[in-house]
């Protein structure tokens, strides 16, 4: 084992928990610990050690520009071990650049980056050997067979020229074994994605980075790919997945980080974020005459109401009040056409976050859910 080098002195290191960092000093899931690079050991290559703080990736206040175009702007991403972290954001939000910085494929202009506790810019080879990446384009060699594509990866990742067993295992896992003799140029989009996934897990990486892995896939194939990603975390791997498809992240993410213009707007579990934006239970109501629903204001347990195009959204202090509410409205002669206790989806959350950011003075929740009454 070769000892470690201290962190690069040229980088700007944000202090955990400082005003510039939106995250707590210990990260979202772990406690503070000394990172290997801070331990004063010296050498040329990192030893295989567990990530500090239970964090596999630690990016703090990272900025990166291409010419005059900023790609990342004070981005902070903390990825806990063994979880699925979803980077959510529109095209151009900086998701792909973030992945490239994590593996050391790109060097940030400033900020603090550690992957497995090591500076990927300095120990890139060792960091990348422990990462498996599936990029938005499958990045396969069309003129080679599926087998040759996997063999190439096996050799670059140090599995040697006789990697038959891991190749067969990885390909078999993603159901592409039978097609390995064919030229990849003849593969369907789904087959290419499966081959790219096989290649990403071939060397048994600790960290999997998926950049829009279901891009171009039909719904059935997308579902299968997401199931496979879920399976991989069951085996203890850490997954970072970029997507702009909210439905993909729904139910899959242990942690969501919403990105926009190269910066992280917010992070947390879907449940926590939902509670942050909708601290109360919600029921959606509609009636033959929607105006009659205005009389909800002032009823017991009603916190706020908001009129939408096709329904009225009511925040209650407790969903158990719904029967009383319905009874009261019915008694008042309101003919209800819809009573729908609503769990906000990730899509609701995402747009609420973005609405709030466009109206930052509104504060959490208010921009997303302007209260009519209280």
């Amino acid at each position, binding site marked *: 084992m070769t000892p470690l080098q201290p962190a690069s002195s040229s980088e700007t290191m944000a202090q955990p928990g400082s005003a510039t960092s939106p995250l707590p000093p210990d990260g979202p899931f772990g406690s503070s610990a000394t990172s290997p690079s801070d331990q004063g050991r010296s050498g040329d290559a990192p030893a295989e050690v567990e990530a500090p703080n239970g964090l596999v990736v630690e990016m703090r206040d990272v900025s990166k*520009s*291409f*010419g005059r175009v900023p790609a990342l702007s004070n981005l902070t991403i903390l990825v806990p071990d063994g979880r699925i972290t979803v980077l959510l954001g529109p095209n151009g939000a900086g998701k792909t*650049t973030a992945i*490239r910085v994590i*593996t*050391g*494929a*790109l*060097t940030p202009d400033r900020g603090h980056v550690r992957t497995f506790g090591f500076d990927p810019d300095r120990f*890139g*080879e*060792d960091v*990348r*050997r422990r*990462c498996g*990446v599936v*990029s938005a*384009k*499958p*990045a*396969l*060699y*069309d*003129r*080679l067979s599926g087998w*040759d594509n996997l063999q*190439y*990866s096996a*050799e*670059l*990742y*140090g599995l040697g020229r006789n990697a038959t067993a891991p190749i067969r295992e990885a390909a078999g896992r993603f159901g592409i074994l039978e097609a390995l003799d064919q*030229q990849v140029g003849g593969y369907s989009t789904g087959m290419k994605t499966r081959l790219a996934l096989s*290649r990403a897990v071939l060397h048994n990486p600790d960290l999997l*980075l998926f950049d829009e892995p279901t891009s171009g896939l039909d719904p059935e194939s997308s579902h299968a790919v997401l199931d496979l990603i879920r399976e991989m975390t069951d085996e203890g791997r850490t997954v970072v997945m970029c997507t702009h498809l909210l439905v993909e992240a729904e139910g899959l993410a242990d942690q969501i980080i919403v990105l926009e213009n190269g910066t992280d707007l917010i992070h947390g579990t879907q449940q926590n974020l939902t509670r942050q934006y909708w601290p109360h239970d919600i029921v959606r109501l509609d009636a033959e005459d929607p105006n009659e629903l205005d009389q909800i204001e002032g009823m017991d347990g009603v916190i706020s109401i908001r009129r939408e195009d096709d329904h009225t959204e009511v925040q209650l202090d407790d969903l158990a009040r719904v029967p009383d509410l319905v009874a009261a409205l019915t008694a008042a002669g309101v003919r209800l056409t819809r009573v729908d206790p609503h769990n906000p989806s990730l899509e609701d959350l995402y747009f609420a976050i973005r609405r709030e950011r466009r109206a930052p003075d509104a504060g959490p929740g208010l921009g997303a859910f302007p209260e009519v009454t209280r």
Partner: protein
Amino acid sequence: MNYQRMLTVMRTDLKQLAQSKDFWVPMSLLGGLFFIVIPAILLSVINSIGNIGSVQQVSQALQLLPQSAQDAVPQAAAAGTKVSYVLAVYLLAPIAVIVPLTISTAVGSSSIVGERERGTGEFLAHSPAGVKEIYLGKLIASLIPGYLTTIVGFGLYSIMVNLIVGPDAGGWFFPTPSWWLLILWVLPPFLLIALSMVLRLSARVKSTAAAQQAAGLITFPLILIAYAQSTGALFGGAAVPLSILMGAVAWAIGIGLLISGMRSLTRARLLGVANEA
């Protein structure tokens, strides 16, 4: 530097070339045309038409050659045989330069920018392979097709020349020592120089088409220089020492360009996001 990974990159690039009929069919045709078809037709015609007036005139023009070159021509042979001999030994030297440079620069120019265009640069950028390993692997993979074509073509050319001209020139005479030096000592560094420059271009430009155009601009003068140098070395009074010296200078330049060229490839360039401004 992990040489195993460098060889892996090289092998994979060569495997892709081997899978591409659209590459190796024209490459084989080019080699066949320059090394076999054109020389065979020229030598057969000149050798068979004998001492007609025009051949006599060409034969007299051979007196313009340096004395050392004239001395090497079999004096007792017919005029047609003398012309064939000079043609085979001296005037077809450019084919040994044009063919490998054309083929290797064609391969090299798309080598790095091609990875970027196909999106496979992303795979390489995220892999543990170092950029020097990738650069060298690609350089060798670009060099081999051109040089291999030359070696095979040179072998076939030698057999053909000896079969057509040899019987009248007093036996098998080709390759001459100068040709051995040209092929084994002078040509490789010129290929290295060309490829170092072409791969540097390939790392920087935005498309394969742009790389090929720019590569043409670089390699054309290089072909002229290589041609001038190689024929000069073959004709020169001290052909062998001159070839050795010229090769040594070319090697020094080639290695220098190779080392500086390795710095031109970065992961950002593999990804196509380098700040070129």
